[in-house]
């Protein structure tokens, strides 16, 4: 189903257990309608990658994921030849002793091409589908790759010298995420619909915990959300995201704790805080402070 209004996007996301706030729903709707990439920024663990997954589920299209890393290049993002098979084929031709010219072209054909995410997306889109292409953590790739992507995102076509140009019939649904470990160039962002995903409000976080961890009590969900709200105002080196809230809730479920007592919170701080300095800071201010109401 392709949601055709902001409300429909909201509903579709909620039905897949993603509680999106209004601004995100508007942005997603806009990106779908305009056929433009969606650029999601925000701290780690606020649910950026999840948006792409949910979107793929909602649209009932395959999710094609490109995880970025330093040194990522066209071979890994686009296509690569299957050398082992090509060499075998060459040997085979030699054995058969058949004429060379036409066969060389055979060896450089689609059959021997390994499609990586970007080509996969274009190929899927060339058949009339609208796959969801997730370009995850673009900030980890180098600037060279970003420049390459700029071109890809405007044309959605891939040229392979030996084969020719493969063009997408419709633009794939593209979701680009960034944790902002560095600034992505404005030229790329301008091609996209931009959205900054913030930490959720207390109400939304409670709702998310409820949805994702079934069987959790209303009190506990509220306690967790409140503690998180406090933690995020504490000037921590790495404030916990929604992913951490869910980890925390799941841990408490495993431990069988129905309520968040100072003792339980203290012994599980490592689930939500990943820097020694942050844990120290919370302990010196007192874990009880996180839990008191009002």
């Amino acid at each position, binding site marked *: 189903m392709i949601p055709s209004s902001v409300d429909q996007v909201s509903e579709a996301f909620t039905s897949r257990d993603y509680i999106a706030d209004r*601004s995100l729903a508007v*942005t997603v*709707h*806009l990106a779908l309608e305009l056929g433009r990439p969606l650029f999601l920024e925000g701290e780690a663990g606020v649910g950026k990658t999840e948006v792409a997954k949910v979107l793929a589920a909602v649209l009932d299209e395959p999710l094609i994921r490109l995880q970025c890393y330093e040194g990522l290049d066209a071979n890994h993002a686009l296509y690569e030849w299957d050398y082992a098979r090509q060499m075998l084929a060459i040997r085979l031709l030699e054995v058969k002793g058949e004429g060379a010219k036409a066969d060389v072209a055979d060896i450089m054909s689609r059959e021997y091409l390994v499609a990586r995410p970007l080509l996969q997306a274009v190929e899927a889109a060339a058949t009339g589908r609208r796959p969801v292409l997730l370009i995850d953590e673009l900030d980890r790739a180098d600037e060279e790759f970003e420049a390459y992507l700029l071109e890809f995102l405007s044309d959605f076509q891939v040229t392979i010298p030996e084969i020719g140009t493969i063009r997408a019939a419709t633009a794939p649904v593209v979701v680009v995420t960034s944790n902002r470990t560095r600034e992505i160039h*404005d030229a790329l962002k*301008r091609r996209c619909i*931009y959205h*900054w995903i913030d930490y959720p409000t207390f109400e939304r976080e409670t709702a998310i915990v409820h949805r994702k961890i079934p069987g959790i009590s209303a009190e506990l969900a509220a306690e967790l959300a409140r503690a998180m709200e406090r933690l995020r105002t504490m000037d921590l080196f790495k404030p916990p995201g929604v992913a951490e809230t869910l980890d925390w809730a799941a841990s408490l479920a495993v431990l069988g704790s129905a309520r968040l007592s100072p003792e339980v919170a203290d012994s599980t701080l490592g689930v939500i805080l990943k820097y020694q300095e942050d844990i120290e800071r919370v302990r010196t201010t007192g874990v009880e402070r996180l839990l008191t109401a009002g």
Partner: protein
Amino acid sequence: MNASPPTEPFTDNLVHFARYLRTRGLPVTSETAADLLRAALIVGLDNPEDAFHALRAVTITRPDHQLVFNEAWELFFGSGRSPRAPKLDTIEFQTWRRNPTLRVIAPTSAEASDDDAAEPKEVAEQMGGSYSERLAGKDFTELTPEEQEEVRRIMARMIWQPAETLGRRWEPARSGYRPDLRRTLRNLVGSKADLLPLAFVAPRPRRRPLLVVADVSGSMERYVEMLLYFIHAARGKLGRLEAFVFATHLTRITRQVRHRDPRIALSQISAAVNDWSGGTRIGESLETFNREWSRRVVRGGPIALIISDGWDRGDPDVLRKQMGIFSRSVHRVIWLNPLAGRPGFAPETRGMQAALPFVDDFLPAANLRDLREVIRTLESVPGHRRPRPVGGDAHGSPPFSRGIPTS
């Protein structure tokens, strides 16, 4: 969807809105105006909240734009006014610029530097004459304006060959590291060779980025200008350069440093910093860096250059702790202290004492000769890090490469 003809007040309004956003520094192009209209038509205008989110998503490109956009929205469509509200032509389009009342470091000589570029290169590095020798050893604070000019000229031409590390990208190589099947096969096609001559790739070397954090507080005043020229000279000769200055708080000056002309770069820096010659809070400034910038600008294992005399008004415990975090997030910490070369100097200030366990190289930086030594140190940075003391309780004496007077 009912497309409005461009004469409608609403469309005009959007164009004005876009123009206004541009004056406030948002990356608005003529295309953006069209996007605004498209976005408005898609979500409709009956729900102002949706319209707000939609228009915002097509105009901003970073989180700090949000505030600017919100203000502009309030101005044009806020307080219950619908986005359809009649054309606003009362808004004055003023350029928003930082008030340039701040102190500008005056160039000591009005002479332009551009014509120097024509001079032969040898003059710069060839320090043969006794005059040049004297100049190289002369403290920056004792230079005459003419000598400063000369020193700057030399700095701009110093040769930097900073240490390289192996990157994660690959490049063709003559032999050895990993076979390059793509090239191997390509070579094979069309050749009649029976043997398979393997082609190879090796990791492409890459220069480590340089991260400069310079103290511009009162006690550094007499050195700051020349050292900023030095940083400017480093720009362009290294891979990437990130630069920050601090006195009581931290300011990022990376963009300003990038300007080609050092004088303009310097005056832009002085316009950007508003606590020149203030007190020094090294620990707090580093804390700001660690929390807000570290994960955004520290990529690729940079070499960090901290420039400070170590006179610190802040809490040494904070400094110790923040130095710990800082040193663990970079490849190497080089501390430049203009006073370190003076006879009888010992790093005894509380700030210096707190920071030293986390410093790899402690070097003087008071004259040209010192700066040459700094460059040599940068060139010889080893590929591996020494283990860092953890947390805030490190008091051991570090294995300095040089510079600390043994007493």
